[in-house]
């Protein structure tokens, strides 16, 4: 887990926003929305990993098991 993941998520967001704008200009709004969903899922996968790690850590530290 690295701090660069923050930049990765932000980068994905910006790129998706640009693609959304371009596709909207081309008149393909449905594809634009699907791309937004796809990017969001990619971001969620990044975040889920970290959250799982956090919960594991809390479990081990506070004697939950």
């Amino acid at each position, binding site marked *: 887990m690295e701090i660069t993941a923050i930049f990765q998520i932000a980068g994905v*967001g910006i790129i998706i926003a640009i693609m959304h704008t371009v596709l909207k200009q081309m008149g393909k709004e449905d594809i634009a929305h699907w791309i937004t969903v796809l990017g*969001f899922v990619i971001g969620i996968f990044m975040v889920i990993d970290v959250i799982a790690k956090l919960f594991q850590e*809390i479990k081990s530290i*506070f004697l939950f098991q």
Partner: protein
Amino acid sequence: MEIIQVVGIGLIAALLVILVREQKPQFAFLITVFTGVFLFLLVIGKVGAVINVINELANRSGIPDVYLKTILKIIGIAYVAEFGAQMVRDAGQESIASKIEFAGKIFILVLAIPIINVIIETLLTLLPLGSS
């Protein structure tokens, strides 16, 4: 000087959130969650060290193991509940956040019941009325 690291990460994350929120609020939320978890993970190692010391002290002073475990569990529940509630509140769902906090309070109460029981029993043995 890890505090400089923490402040730097917070500032950068806030900047990125402002940058992204205009176009795609979903990603702003993801960055917020990630930053929160990251900072939490950065600090929680230190908490573990402190808790180890407390554990050792409790072992040496002969306090029953159950009490310390209960207290640690309560602290853990409070941390997690607070964290989750804040994340959900950031997403704009005030009502779900308050439900999470409510559930945390209930779980803490359930964990505390054995200790309350012990206190009341001790009190009853101290009272002259209880023994008659």
